[in-house]
């Protein structure tokens, strides 16, 4: 290589690379929305702590959570959590293809199974929470 001169190396920006293509940006949104899942876990942890502190603490926590700011926060978290989860469901056929004989199960079936699992788990949680 050196006989023909030194090759030119194009530097890749470490901080702005994801603006180079819409598909990189889409990937970053999928990854960054996990922060909202963590935020929800944090709210659950705070709930446990307030519960352990007695009735008064718990009721004031519930009051805050059902106030306008609490509801807006939870709706925002829900929206991002749904986006995060569905964006992962939609790529599952790549990671877990199912071959039956000479054919592969259509991706929609694998994605659908994940949605079905999600639905069943949600019903189970609602049932345990006494919603029915």
């Amino acid at each position, binding site marked *: 290589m050196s006989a023909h001169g030194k090759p030119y190396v194009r530097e890749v920006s470490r901080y702005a690379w994801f603006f180079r293509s819409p598909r990189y940006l889409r990937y970053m949104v999928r990854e960054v929305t996990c922060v909202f899942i963590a935020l929800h876990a944090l709210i659950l942890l705070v709930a446990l702590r307030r519960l352990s502190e007695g009735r008064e603490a718990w009721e004031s926590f519930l009051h805050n959570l059902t106030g306008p700011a609490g509801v807006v926060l939870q709706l925002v978290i829900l929206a991002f959590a749904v986006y995060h989860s569905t964006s992962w469901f939609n790529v599952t056929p790549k*990671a877990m293809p199912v071959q039956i004989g000479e054919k592969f199960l259509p991706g929609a079936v694998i994605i659908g199974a994940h949605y079905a699992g999600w639905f069943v788990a949600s019903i189970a949680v609602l049932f345990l929470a006494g919603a029915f």
Partner: protein
Amino acid sequence: MSERTVELEVLRFNPETDSEPRFQRYSVPCMNEWVVLDALNHVKEIMDPTLSYRWSCHMAVCGSCGMMINGEPKLACKAFLREYEGVIRVEPLAHFPIQRDLVTVIDDFVTKLKRVKPYLIPKAVQPVEAGEFRQSPAELKRYKQYTLCINCMLCYAACPEYGLVPKFIGPAAISLAHRYNEDSRDGGREERQQEIASNEGVWECSFVGACSEVCPEHVDPAGALQQVKIKSTVDWYQEHLMPWNKK
């Protein structure tokens, strides 16, 4: 056949005289059914014989003419001019050093490809008289799509991970390792795992999925890499939780 003038903006770099690349504009009279490669060939034959680029088959089989066309990794022989409006910007494949003009240094990919042993390693040596290694259509189907890889390296140009962490073995090489691991006649998985299940292997992949989106042969490298991750994780659990299973 209708004709139109296409404005090509081509990245030029001469390692003997230039300290950095620059764009050069060509107004090329083109037929409507031409691809970008035809326009480049016209430039080289008629307008500027100093322009350097790689090509061979002109039918999306050899994998030589990969380049960035308006920022997208494409085979120049498969990029139809009628699909572009305005100036078409042609650059060498991203993430590879530029040797000259549109020609890149591909040694890194070739070295990585060798490391993953992309060939059949039989489970046991067998004399020719023992007959052929038979395979059912279902066993063939299991890995067939990965055999369509033409080593064009578009997936490396699309992979942001490879751009940021050049030691990453990358989409095509790992997919080809997976192709042989999934072959019922092969017994070389353990040798390949040392390369592809390492930090420089699949664990460097964060599943952006761009590799599969740009592949001109519709191979799914992103899928292959996630499958290797799952299988390597199962290996780890088997080794640590079920040591009695160890061979």
